[in-house]
Every structure is written in C-alpha cells, then in structure tokens.
C-alpha cells in the first residue's frame, strides 16, 4: 500500500532524494547485499521513519545519507547536493542509539562540538546553545559531565547537539533504542515537541512500531536479504500528538497495519 497523501507541513519540495541505491558489504564468508535498488523521496519538513527487522539495511541507508558510506550504485542527494557538500555546510544533524558524548566535556561543550568541527565561533552561538539545553529539558545541567547524567538525559544532550547547527536535515539512528519502554514513550513526546519547535526534515531509524507510528508522517517499511523497501505508509494523525494517542483505537489500527506490512514483506 503506497499512499501519497499531502503532508502536515506546507513545503512540497523534496529535501532528500535517494535514487536506485545499492550497497554490498564484503565479509569474509560471502558478500552481503545490504541495500538493493532503493528509491525514496522525503519532502521538506516531514518526519520519516525507517522500520524493519535487523539486517534490512535501514541503518546503512541512514549512513549513506550522512555520507558515512558511499553507495555502489545510485545517487543520494540532499537539496540537490551530495551528502559531503551538504554536511560541510552544517546542514546535517545526527544522533545515534549510543549518545556518543565526549566524556571529558560538559553538556554545554558537548553541544558546541559540531560548531567547533565546522570551524565556527562557539562564543557567537552561546545563546543558541543555552536555548537548546533548555529546549531538551536540561536547564541546570549545562555544566554537568556526561558521567553524572542518566541514560535518558545523555540522549537529550545528543539531540541538542544534533540541532545546534540549525540543520535542515536531522538523522536519528534508533535514538531511544537503549531506553526502556516507559522512558521511550515520554522521550517520543519530547522529540515531537523539539522537532515541531525547529523547522527540520527528520529521518529516523527505529525497530519500534509504536515509536514509528507516533512520530512519523510517513513510515518506510523495509525488509532484509536483500535490504529493500517493501511499503510506504502515511500516518494521518494531526499534531501535536498527545500521550492519549498511544491508547487510541485508530493508533492501534495503524500499528497493526505496520505489523502486517512487516510480516508480508517477510513472507516473500
């Protein structure tokens, strides 16, 4: 079921264009085809979730968008630029399942790291950094070290860091994968609030069906061997979506639809 409904945000421009991308990894045993001719367009300002079983290539797809891997075939373009050119301007933000913070830096200096890598003046962005720390709910922890924070708080720091350059594309690789379900649901609401407050296109990899259904405008369902897209499902709920949505029957219907898409892809 491929649905092309209008998105919640007004822009209709394609921010991300993935055209016939294939990627094979050479392992000692045999080559593994991580992605086989994947095509995907993501509209400006939309939130897209990639979901699928492990080995379906969803993380590889995200790494291709970040320019951390090169495709064997096909093209990845971000606003008609290569990932390398795009990210060199600080237009990309990224957060992983592991917050990957520098343990010797305070929260404030961790958030400032992308600016330093890009060669920008940190002092000129002090206000922006403090606003972001407030946005992710860490007011009062700006001078704390990562070792003094809980897992959820560290993940908030990673998200603040991903937003510090005002990116037009936000990449999230299972950002809450290491958190328990209760914390994950409250972080999902937080992420929605943060994302709605900052005008970016978001691409999130997840293996949680309800996380995808809750956050995304569109869910891209993938499957393994070879890694490929099997379905694209639009999520109709209006924003902001509240905690009550998790209990709503129409939410469960969407989750069932996603589960069915994952299953049917698996039986091929």
């Amino acid at each position, binding site marked *: 079921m491929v649905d092309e409904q209008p998105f919640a945000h007004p822009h209709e421009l394609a921010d991300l264009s993935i055209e016939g991308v294939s990627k094979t990894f050479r392992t000692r045993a045999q080559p593994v085809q991580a992605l086989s001719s994947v095509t995907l367009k993501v509209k400006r300002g939309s939130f897209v979730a990639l979901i699928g079983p492990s080995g379906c290539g969803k993380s590889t797809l995200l*790494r291709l968008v*970040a*320019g*951390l891997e090169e495709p064997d075939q096909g093209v990845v373009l971000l606003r008609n630029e290569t990932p*390398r050119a795009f*990210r*060199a301007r*600080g237009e*990309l*933000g*990224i957060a*992983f399942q*592991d917050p*990957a913070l*520098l*343990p*010797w830096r305070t929260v404030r200096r961790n958030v400032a*790291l*992308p600016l*330093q*890598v*890009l060669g920008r003046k940190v002092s000129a962005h002090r206000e922006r950094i403090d606003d972001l720390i407030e946005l992710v709910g860490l007011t009062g922890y700006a001078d704390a*070290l990562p*070792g003094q924070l809980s897992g959820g708080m560290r993940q908030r720091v990673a998200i603040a*860091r991903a937003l510090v*350059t005002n990116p037009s594309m936000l*990449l999230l690789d299972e950002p809450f994968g290491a958190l328990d379900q209760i914390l994950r649901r409250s972080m999902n609401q937080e992420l929605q609030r943060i994302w709605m407050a900052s005008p970016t296109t978001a691409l999130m990899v997840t293996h949680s069906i309800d996380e995808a259904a809750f956050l995304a405008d569109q869910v891209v369902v993938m499957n393994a061997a070879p890694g490929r897209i099997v379905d694209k499902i639009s999520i109709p709920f209006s924003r902001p979506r509240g905690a009550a949505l998790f209990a709503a029957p129409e939410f469960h219907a969407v989750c069932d639809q996603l589960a069915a898409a994952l299953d049917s892809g698996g039986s091929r």
Partner: protein
Amino acid sequence: MIRARLYSSLTVLFVLLVWEVAARLIHSVRDVIASPTLILVQYWTGADLYVPHVLATVRSAAFGFVIGASFAVAAAILFCRFPAVEGAFRGVNIALFAMPPIVVGPVLAIVFNGDLPQIILAALVVYFPAMAAALVGLRDIDPRLLDVIRTYGGGSNAVMRFVRLRSALPAILAGLRIAAPLSVLGAILGEFGSGVRWGLGSFLLGSLGDADPARLLGIGFAATAIAMLGYGFFAWIGRRTTGATVAVTIAPDRSPDQVILWTEYSGASRAALFVMAFLLPFLLWWLILQVSHISPIIAPGPMETLHYLTAGPESVDARASLLAALAQTLPLAGLGLVCGLAAAFVVASLTVVRPAVANAILPVAMLLQSMPLVALVPLVMLLFGRDTAASVVMAVLVVFFPAYVMLAQGFALVPHAARELVEVYGGSKSRELALVSIPYAASYLFAAAKLVAPRALLGVMVAEWLLSGRGLGNLLNSSRGLLDYDMVWAGAVISILISVAAYEAVGGIERLLR
C-alpha cells in the same frame, strides 16, 4: 579497601621484623644480608656519598625521561595519523623495544661526553613503552564519535584534535607510569657504560668489590625508591586528571605486535613496507653519523662494521671472540627465559586454584616489575655468588615478573561462564584448570614470551658485566676499557640483532602453532 591496606601494612612490618631478627641472630644470614637497621645506619653515615650519587642519577633519568616521553608522544601521534609511517618505522620500533640497553651505553659513551650518554640511554629506554601506550590510546576511540565528527565534515585532523588526543590521555599517563622507572634503569645502565664519577650505577660498580651487604643493598633500595617515586608520581597525576572521566586501569606492558597493525596492508605495499622496515634502522644509523661528522674510527657506520666482522684484518679474531662470548651467554639466557616463563605460568595458574595466593602475589609482582633490575644485582650476588648461577638467576628474575603479570591478566580474563560450566558438571578446580583456563591463557604465554625474550638476554649480560666477567656482557665491558671501538659497535649491533631475532622467533613459533 582500608582493611586491605591495613593487612598489607602489617605484612610488611612483619617481614621487616623477621628480617631484622634473622639478620642479627643467624650467622649464615648475617654474612649475606644486612638487617634493615644496618642499612638505615649506613644511609646516615654514608649520606655525603649517597646525596651526589642519587642526585646525578635522578638528573640524568629526569632529562632522559622528558626527552624520551616527548619523542614517544610525538611519534605516536604521527603513527596514528599516518599508519604507513608506522609500518616503515616497524624495524626501528622493534629494535628500540628489544635492544639490551647495557650494550648501547658504551656506544653512546664513545660518541658523547659527560651526562649525555646516560640521558640519551634513559630516553631510548623510555621511548618504546611510552609510545606503545600512547598509540594504543590514540587508536582506541569510540567509533560513534568518529561518525559524529565526520557528519559535520571533520576529517582525520578534527578527529585527532577533538577526540583522540584527549581520550588518549589516561593511556599516555599509564605509559609514562611504566616508563618513569625505566628511565632510572636507563640512566644507571648508561653510567656503567660511560664510567662517570657520580651516579648510583658508578656507586654500585665501585662498591661491588667491597661486598659490604649493607652498602650494596642500600644502593639497590635507593635505586628502587627513585624508580617507585617516578611510578607513584604518574599514578597520582593519572588519578587526579582522569579520575572524573575514566576509571584508572592497571598499566599493561606491551610488545610491538600488540601495537603494530599489519592487517591494513596487503600485497606490494606490504612487501615495500617490510623492506623499508628492515632498512630504516641501518639507514638512520648511517645518516646520524653523516650528519654529526663523527670520525669513522670511533663511530663506524653499518658498512664499516660489516667489513670489520667479515673481511677486515681483524675479522677472524673478532668473529672468534664474539662467537665464544655468545656460546657462553645465549644458553644461559635461553635457560633463564624458559625457567622464568615456566615459573610465571605455574604461579599464574594458581590464580584459578588458589585465588587468595594470587591476590597476595600480584601487587608485589606489579611493584617488583617496576624495580630497576640492577637493584637486584647486589641481592643476587650476595645469595648466588658471582658465577653462572648468578647469571641464570638474573635472567629468571627479569623474565618472571613481567611474564607473571601478563599471564595473571590472561587467567583473569577467562570467561566466568566457561569456568562455571565445568563446575556445574561437578568438575574439580584442577579439571577446570586443564580443560578451560590453561588452554585459554596459553595465548597469553606467547604474548608474555615476546615481551620478555629480549629481557632474558639483558639480565644475563648485566650479570656478566658486573659479576661473572664472562660472555658477551664482559666482552663489551672489556672492549670498552681497551678502547676497541670496532668491537664495541659490532658487539652492540650483534646483541640487538639477536634480541630482535629472539622476539621474531617467538612470533614465528606462535604463527606455526596456530
């Protein structure tokens, strides 16, 4: 923690008490080992001698340490940033790892004056362990951080600046912790070679003839104390600077194979790097002599030394005396290596059967590992005389402690679940040792053997130089006295080549058996 400290303090007090009583009441002990109070008294009466000797050694060791550590960190950054450079320097690194420092001292004394030979030797001894630790620290970073930096367009320089340098700091400090006591050893071995007036090495040389137990042990303890102060200083800095961010771990000693990455290269580039790695040490030797304009009579280059050993007018005699010396030295070094490794393996396997015993031995072994081996010379002489036995015991001692520490770590890393599996099926501790722990820790046996193979040769040569007056150690010492420069250089080069060969041979056996 506090209770454990109390127990070990009580143990030390008890040992001191037994030692005091035995050294005072038992005749056979009194002739060999001075009592603690006697040693303290001679520190007091001999203070006018100790102060200048100790100060001279501390000065040489400190200068050498700063120079060696600076080169080590700079080299590690270079090797991490450009792996091909490290491949090319493999030969230099292995030579610096394996070289017996005692043979380099006389060579340095020929070329340099005053304190320089000791300072340079201390720097050379410090270089490898400090470089190895720093390189491992620089390389071993969280791969996600690499992704973060690259996502913002940062390259290798940005990764180095924002991630590697700071995250390597604990490893660098751990390396300096190992290197600090070694700088004391290097300075003392340099003093043997240069024959300067002041320094603990000269003090020890001058006191061996008198065979006064209190004085000899006093010098040994003084050298150990300086080395321990160096170790303690960096342990303290390490705790202060990194305590907040990273847990302080025990500092492992490393052999080159645990540092050098060969897997990254293949085919032609690998072959080219091999050739480069082999040639570079000789090229550097030649280049340094060219640049420094030292007369080839006192400082022959690689070709002159080869000529001296193969075709020159003295080549027959030179080869004969070298071969005779090697025939005396190598069997003793081999025997010491095998005995020391076997003893280390047996004692380390006790970790499994008797954990309490191991817990008591490990801290002592870690402590003794950082003790300068020349500090053992007086004790060995007083207990085993000045003959062959003393040489073998020296080799065993310098082999045992580092090998034991590495093997104990190996036994400690045996997966708990694998050990419990045997227990669940009712297997005894010895059964578990035979089925799980020994096969598991055997791989560490090779790592330990590579680490200590060159040291066995050094141990024997130190004993030959100071005590027995035989073998390669004595040949170099007497050639130095006779101003036979060609032989000093040839003997040093041969010793280093043999050490490197011993190291590579252990690696070869390991590859063959796997």
